[in-house]
Every structure is written in C-alpha cells, then in structure tokens.
C-alpha cells in the first residue's frame, strides 16, 4: 500500500509539471505587457528595459518557462504580484487557511446531511421524503451560488439582521458563506447517495441478508451503505477540492480574505502571477484529493486494496470499469 501511495505521489510530478506549462503558456500568449501594467503610463525606455530585465521578461519563452518552473520547484516561488509586489506564495499560504476552514466545515455538513438524506430517499423510494429530497437536490443544483448568496444576504443580513453582511468577524460571519457553499454540496451528495444506494439495494446479497432475517437498519448500514459509498466518496473529494480552489464567487460576495478573493483581485487587475499561482494551487489540491479519495476507497472497501497493489490486475480492472461506464 505504501508503495502504491508513493507511486501515486511520484506520478503527481509530471501532471503538475504539465499544469505549470499549460498555465504559464496561457499567460505568455496573453496580449498586454506586464511591464506597462507595473510602470503605469509615465515611464522612460530605460526604465522599461530595466524592469523587463528584472522580471526576466526579456528572455525567450523557454527560458522564462524554465525559470518559472525552477523557482516553483526549488523555492515555492510563484513570483510577485504586479500591483502590490508581495510574493504570491506568502499570500497563498495565509489565505489557504481561511478557505480551508470554510471548506472543511462545509464538507462535514455536506456529508452529515447529504448521506442520511440520500439513504432515506433511496430506502423509501417514491415516498414524500424521496420526492422532497430529490426536488430539493434538483432545485439547488440549478441555482448558482452567485444567485443564492445575494438572496441570502438580503434575507438574513439586510431584512432579519441575523448575520453580518460581509467580512470575517466572529463565528456568525462564517454561517452564511458555509450555508451557501453547503447547499450545492448537500444536493450533490444526496443525489449521489440515492442513486448509488438504489443500485446496491437491488443486488442479490441484499436480498440474501434480508432473507436470513437481518433487520432493515442493519442491512442498510452493514451491507448496502458500505457498498454504495464509493461514488459518494468520489463526489465528496472532488467537491472539497473544488471548494478549496473555486469558492471564488462566495468569497467575493461575502468579502472573505481567502483564495477566491485573491484570485478575483488578480483577475480584476490582470495580475497574472496571482491568477497562475491560484490556478496551480487549486490543481495541486485537486490532484492530492484524488489520491486521498483513492486511499479512502481501500478503507471502505478492502477488496480494492489488491487492485491497487498489483499493477497489472489494477489496470485491467480500471479498463473494465471504464469500459463498463460508457456502454450504450
């Protein structure tokens, strides 16, 4: 198992290298001159040349790319913001804590609410509960967070005055951002749990468990849920990763000093080191989460361990699984 984890971590390097190249190239091809952005309008040609040399912008594409990658891999140096001149890495490090706090609490709420809702909806299929939960899930997945957030602000901050409108001051200011974030996640996890449970409940071993006289609750908990959890873990992991990197709109609306607002500032000022750094960090989190998710699989379903450990059979199974989910 340790070998497998190590292998996955090593495989991360080429992927992240690819992300670096993609992100750097996108910015490189962007029209507009960062030197002009930094110096403003009144600059002399000498100043321009000096600044370009300082930033390394006078070098060729490959040299610049190499420098960018080298600095990140050796010193975690993502460059400096064009506007504030603060290193991007330091800002990312302080802001990731804020975003992580919100993301962790949100994902815990998502799972604690979503999984039971999904179980109820599936075990009581076509009941009022089922229709209630599914229509809630459908509705809240249709409303983007940048719609829910302002509406919540109007209701809870302006009209009812329960929570502060914006900023991070005390526990109460976390409530609304987490609620907005959690809504979508709960919907997703409920849907996923429901469909996965419905599939599992129809399996033969569930009928066997019922036939041998096991209680309903026990069947659900011991036999159905454990086997139905895999897709739920997948969405949980990916939605956590997305929140870490992409809770941009919610953070912006509630002016939370996290990664999202940082990225937003970067976008509005066309401050490319910030945009690149944020995107790379988000991609790294996504990759790490996918490893964590794969490891969690083996905890929930020990059968998968053999698949991960022996590479050959793993590949075969993976191919079978891929072939299986795409058939017509």
């Amino acid at each position, binding site marked *: 198992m340790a070998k497998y984890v190590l292998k996955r971590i090593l495989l991360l390097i*080429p*992927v*992240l290298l*690819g*992300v670096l190249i*993609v*992100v750097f190239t*996108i*910015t490189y*091809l*962007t*029209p507009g001159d960062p030197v002009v952005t930094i110096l403003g309008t009144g600059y002399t040609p000498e100043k321009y040349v000096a600044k370009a040399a300082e930033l390394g912008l006078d070098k060729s594409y490959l040299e610049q790319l190499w420098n960018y990658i080298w600095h990140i891999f050796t010193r975690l140096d993502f460059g400096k913001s064009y506007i504030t001149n603060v290193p991007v890495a330091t800002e990312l490090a302080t802001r990731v804590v804020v975003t992580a706090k919100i993301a962790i609490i949100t994902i815990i709420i998502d799972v604690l609410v979503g999984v039971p809702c999904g179980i109820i909806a599936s075990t009581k299929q076509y009941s009022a509960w089922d229709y209630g939960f599914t229509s809630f899930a*459908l*509705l809240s*997945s*249709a*409303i*983007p967070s*940048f*719609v829910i957030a*302002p*509406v919540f*602000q*109007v209701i809870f901050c*302006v009209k009812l005055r329960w929570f502060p409108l914006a900023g991070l001051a005390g526990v109460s200011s976390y409530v609304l951002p987490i609620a907005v974030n959690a809504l979508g996640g709960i919907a997703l996890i409920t849907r996923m749990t*429901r*469909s996965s449970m*419905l*599939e599992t409940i129809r399996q033969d071993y569930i009928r066997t468990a019922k036939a041998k006289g096991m209680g309903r609750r026990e069947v659900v908990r011991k036999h159905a849920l454990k086997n139905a959890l895999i897709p739920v873990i997948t969405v949980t992991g990916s939605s956590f*990763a*997305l929140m870490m*990197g*992409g809770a*941009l*709109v919610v953070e*912006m*609306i509630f002016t939370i000093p996290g990664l999202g607002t940082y*990225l*937003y500032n970067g*976008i*509005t000022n*066309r401050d*490319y080191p910030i*945009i*690149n750094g*944020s*995107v790379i960090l*988000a*991609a790294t989190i*996504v*990759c790490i989460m*996918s490893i964590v998710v794969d490891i969690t699989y083996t905890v929930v379903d020990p059968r998968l361990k053999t698949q991960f450990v022996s590479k050959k059979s793993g590949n075969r199974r993976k*191919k079978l699984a*891929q*072939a*299986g*989910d*795409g*058939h*017509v």
Partner: protein
Amino acid sequence: MVMFNTKKRRRKMEMAGVQFTKSNSRFGDIAARMLRNKLGMVGLIIIVVLLILVIFAPLFTKYPYFEQSFPDRFLYPNAEHILGTDNFGRDLWSRMLYGGRISLLVSLVALVMSNVVGIIIGAVSGYFGGAVDEIINRILDILMSIPSMLMAIAVAAALGAGPVKTSIAIAVTGMPYGARLVRSSVLALKGNEFIEAARATGSSNLRIIFKHVLPNTLAPIIVNATLNIGSNIMAISGLSFVGLGVQPPTPEWGSILSAGREFIRDFPPIVIFPALFIGLTIFAINILGDALRDALDPRLKD
C-alpha cells in the same frame, strides 16, 4: 459524396430485401419513453417557451433593451414594465429576453466547439489506443486536474471579454470531459464484432470511426451535451459575474445580475429576475437531460 454513397448502399440493400424500419421504431421507443416522463416534459416545455421568447424577443417587448429613461429608474413590476426597470430605467423584461439570446447562444456555441473537438480527440484516442491514447490521456489528465471554473477564468483572462472569447474559454474547459466520455464509449465498442466485420470488408479507419463507432456512442454524447448546456450557462454567468465574460452594456443574465448587485438592498428585482431566469433554465435543462438519459438508455436509469 458520402450521402450519395449511403443512398446507393441503402438502395442496394433494400433491393436485397433488407428493411429499414428498425431505426425508426427505436426512435419511436425513445420518443414514447420521453413523453411518459412528466418531469422531463415539463423541462422540455419550459425550454421551448424560453427559446420562443428569446428568439422572437422583439415580438414580446416594445422596449429596446438599451433604451435608458432617467425618470423611470427602479420601477417595480407594473403594467408598463412587466418586470420593472433597472438603475438606468431600462426595461428589465426586454433585457431578460435579449440577455437570454447571448446566454443561450454563447453556451450553444461553446457546446458545439467543445463537443466537436472532444469527440474527435476521444474517438481517435479510444479507437487507436496504444501510444496515441497514452499521450492524449496524459494531456487530458493535466487539463482535467485544473478545476473547470479556474480553467475558464485563466483562458478568459488571457483572451479577454466578449461573447466569442467567452465561448472559446468555456469550450476549452469542457473539451476534456467530452473527450473522456467518447473515449470510454469507443473502448467499450471497439471489441464488438460489427467493428471487426467493417474492418474485414475493407472500411478505412475514418469510415469505421464515423459510420460505425460514433453513431453507437450517441446516447451518452447527447445526454452529456444536454446537461452541458446548463453548466455552460452557469459558467458564462459566472464569468460575466467576475467581469470576464460578456461586458455591459451587452445584456447577459450573469452580467445583468452582477451589475445589479450593488442595488440589491433597496431594489431586489434587479437581481431576482436574472437569477430566476438562470435558475429556471438550468433546472429545465437538468430535468430534460435526466429524462433524455432515461429514455435513451433505460439501463442507466436510477
């Protein structure tokens, strides 16, 4: 040329006694299953109504979407202005209709671009396998490890704002997912005997891909595409919201919403109506997509 060939083939086969009713009956089956799904029909009706409203926008509103009228600012919904007016006194109803044009058009253009490229890449990768597949897959891995919203932001920031550039940004973001889907379908199909038969009769790779493989992967592609329209609309609105999508004064649901956000305390309609249109459209598309999935492939049904 291809059409001609097909017709010729068909005629030959018909003369040999092959009947071509099967595909029709299959379509009938799908339509029947579709019609039985009430929720899906609700979605379809909402979308058709929206499309009519948006395409024939001039028929349903007497105000141009750009006409400003200072004395008529911040009017609540009334007989003159069905949805009220915004901070410049522009009619919100006509802004919604014309805004929907941009939202829907951009999302459709993005959908077509991402699917065409995605299908070709996915089909090539799945069909040929080996080193080609390996290389394409690694590149897709890289693209997919960047969260789609951030990818769209990075590309949009590089390209700049505007409807065409926004659709390109969204298409780039969506492409890897379509490619993966097609690839896995193609992988599942590749071993089938009819592919082998086609190869045995001397069909070229291109012909096998377009004539035999892709038509059989249509169901997941259609379902995915339908659901993609919804997520594209959400992405466009999101991009406009952070100032990278469609810029004012061009009306677009997301940009109307974000422009109205500063007035939300005193004049909620300016935010609520675009929100309603976005939410309703995505909701309708989601339930239609689910219904389509169930109708096209009953086995996928949960």
